[in-house]
């Protein structure tokens, strides 16, 4: 091993020892990395030596950090450089030894789901066709009103001119549709009840084993209230929805809400996380502190007791009024959310009227004529709009 010239640091013995030891260990590690390149190693042997080299590098980095007070800055720099080179060397050696992956993860979303199942053994079966096609089959034939926004998912992907956020959301949505979710996507001026999005066979015997996503929907009522033998989804994702009424009073797990605008949300969930949303009235039952981030004009009220259908909820604390705003780090209260006064909330009488219509829509769909549904939904939303600001 060639030591190279050692600078004598004014007789500073600890520093000298460090120099020697550091160089020696660097050299040992370099040799270990070289042995990694030997092709006969088994995968587990290779992994073990790789981990050992990593641990050695880690230890050396820590020692260098410890000694930094005693080292001249030139040495610090060159030693850091030496460490970095070893990390790079390790990465390159590993990359050259690792068998080529059968497919690239990076372009996964562009690849057809079928090829994905063939090349990777996963414990979960991937639905070969887009879930979208099967899930909203029952009302698939309803002509989609040609609204400029929000557009259907496929229109997003055809239109590269849209802004980045929307494209990102649509890409992520398509990912979700490949999985075992049930989904409400690209609806407007309509009523979607839990029965219509729960195609037979989608919910397993244990009941409600899939999360639900509601996305790219406007001027609609989405009703996830459990009915008879249909269980509510265990968790809920809402993204890109506007001017709508969303009823989800029985979500056991978390609710993730992104880009919800000018809407009314009735929700009970274990956790509440809302991003990039504006002008939403939330009637909430949440047993942990609700979180908003990058939102404005969000108003909260306790979920009316008429929506509470389990004794389980009655025994829990509702923390709907203890909201944390992740975008607001100052001590003063966040200006982005507030609590609704009694007179700002939808009154009991209005809820009764609205829910009567909602129940009728649930029972009638899909037999009811499309025009009637549209009118009824419009009626409900404008009624609510008068009591609050949805659809205004």
């Amino acid at each position: 091993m060639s030591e190279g010239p050692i600078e004598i640091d004014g007789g500073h013995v600890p520093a000298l020892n460090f120099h020697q030891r550091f160089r020696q260990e660097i050299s040992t590690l370099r040799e270990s990395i070289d042995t990694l390149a030997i092709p006969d190693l088994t995968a587990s042997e290779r992994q073990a030596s790789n981990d050992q080299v990593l641990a050695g590098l880690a230890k050396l980095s820590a020692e260098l950090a410890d000694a930094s007070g005693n080292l001249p800055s030139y040495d610090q720099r060159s030693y850091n450089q030496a460490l970095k080179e070893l990390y790079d060397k390790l990465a390159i050696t590993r990359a050259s030894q690792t068998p080529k992956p059968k497919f690239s993860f990076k372009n996964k979303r562009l690849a057809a789901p079928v090829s994905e199942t063939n090349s990777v053994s996963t414990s979960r079966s991937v639905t070969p066709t887009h879930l979208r096609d099967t899930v909203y089959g029952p009302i698939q034939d309803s002509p989609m009103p040609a609204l400029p926004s929000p557009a259907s998912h496929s229109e997003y992907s055809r239109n590269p001119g849209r802004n980045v956020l929307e494209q990102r959301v649509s890409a992520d949505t398509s990912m979700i549709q490949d999985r075992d979710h049930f989904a409400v996507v690209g609806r407007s001026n309509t009523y979607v009840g839990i029965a219509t999005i729960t195609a037979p066979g989608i919910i397993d015997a244990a009941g409600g084993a899939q999360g639900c996503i509601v996305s790219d929907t406007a001027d609609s009522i989405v009703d996830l209230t459990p009915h008879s033998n249909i269980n509510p989804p265990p968790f809920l994702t809402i993204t890109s929805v506007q001017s709508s009424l969303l009823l989800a009073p029985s979500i056991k797990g978390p609710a993730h809400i992104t880009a919800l605008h000018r809407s009314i949300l009735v929700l009970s969930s274990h956790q509440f996380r809302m991003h990039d949303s504006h002008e939403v009235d939330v009637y909430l039952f949440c047993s942990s502190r609700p979180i908003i981030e990058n939102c404005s004009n969000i108003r909260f009220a306790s979920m009316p007791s008429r929506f509470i259908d389990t004794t389980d909820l009655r025994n829990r604390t509702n923390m709907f009024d203890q909201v944390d705003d992740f975008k607001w780090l100052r001590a003063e209260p966040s200006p982005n959310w507030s609590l609704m006064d009694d007179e700002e909330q939808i009154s009991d009488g209005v809820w009764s009227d609205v829910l009567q219509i909602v129940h009728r829509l649930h029972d009638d769909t899909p037999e009811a004529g499309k025009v009637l549904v549209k009118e009824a939904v419009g009626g409900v939303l404008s009624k609510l709009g008068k009591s609050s600001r949805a659809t205004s």
Partner: protein
Amino acid sequence: MNEDVSTVSPTLGFIIKTIDFQGYKLNIWDVGGQKTIRSYWRNYFEKTDALIWVVDATDRLRIGECKTELIELLLEERLSGASLLVFLNKTDVPGCMGDDEVQRELELDSISTHKWIIVRCSAITGDNLTEGLAWVVQDARDKLFLY
């Protein structure tokens, strides 16, 4: 971990906690994930033995963002010696993402600079929390006795 979890809420800011575990004292810096404070993460990198990256198994929508942040973080020189424990949380919720799925989405197999492991867990039921921390401790111990 014998704590009442029914009202635990996401970390707002930073929490520092010491846990006695298998005869070791673990100094845990619980750093919030909110966007506004991500730039402050780096104040916590010095002398870190392990990075525990907690992923929400029910948040498919942000798994891409999660990957980007993680990859960015692993480039940090001061974290170069840290091992990575990916805790896949909320796996008690039916229909959540599996560990194979998240391993793929986060492209963990392409990580060559850090020793890593992914562990399904649930902060609600306490499942696998001990197993995850045991890995961290064993890993730190290995580093200690290597030379």
